[in-house]
């Protein structure tokens, strides 16, 4: 597994104007979670134009299908017409998961509606809201998600309480 460089991965997506929403563990980090994540999860519009942008963004990152036993390289040229619903990739900038639908939230349009713009050093990034993140983690309900739900729920409670 290569060293992850999530800022660079986010930068290439943003520079190629890929329409995406940051979801999963890295979105939790933006909200204040101290948990460390090893992949970058984004919700993506899987329409042909956005997939063309995604293919352009991933040029030079050596993307391969991480879940295939033979680790097949991603065919960037035919990506817009390949009919993927999700992409689980390993790139030289780290692991990137692009999802067209998020458990507990819904399709990309729902992710977009339940996201906020964050101004970061990398530019403006759409990030899933804390409430939607909690919903998705509750729906996924793996051991790591349960821990994340506790952290995120505590963050929400701390934000809603007057300073002590």
């Amino acid at each position, binding site marked *: 597994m290569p060293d992850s460089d999530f800022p660079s991965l986010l930068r290439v997506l943003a520079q190629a104007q890929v329409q995406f929403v940051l979801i999963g563990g*890295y979105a939790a980090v933006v909200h204040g979670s101290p948990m460390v994540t090893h992949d970058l999860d984004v919700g993506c519009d899987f329409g042909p134009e956005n997939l063309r942008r995604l293919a352009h963004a991933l040029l030079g990152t050596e993307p391969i299908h991480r879940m295939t036993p033979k680790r097949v390289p991603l065919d960037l040229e035919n990506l817009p017409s390949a009919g993927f619903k999700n992409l689980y990739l390993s790139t030289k900038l780290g692991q990137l998961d692009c999802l067209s639908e998020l458990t507990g939230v819904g399709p990309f349009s729902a992710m977009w509606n339940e996201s906020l*713009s*964050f101004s*970061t050093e990398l530019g403006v990034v759409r990030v899933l809201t804390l409430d939607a993140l909690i919903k998705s983690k509750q729906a996924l309900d793996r051991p790591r998600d349960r821990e994340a739900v506790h952290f995120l729920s505590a963050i929400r409670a701390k934000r*809603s309480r007057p300073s002590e």
Partner: protein
Amino acid sequence: MHPIPPDPESSLRPTRPPAGVSNPDPAPPGGDPTASDPIAEAIAYGLDLSLVDECLRLTPSERMRRHDQALRLYGLLRRAKPDPNAGF
């Protein structure tokens, strides 16, 4: 990219509840871990919420930077090999 609200952080902070309202977040149905007191529940689950307090003092960019430093350290440690001369 997309329009930026003047202060993205501010939109995440709900306004304070009116005086006399002791529980601004009504318990969600279903008996989930967030139902009663999420902070007490998280502590009972074994989480160190001082880490959250530290993260909440940072800006989103600083949180990302801090995370990436931790991830880099993880990568370094993962590749580390035992040193026969280390003496332990």
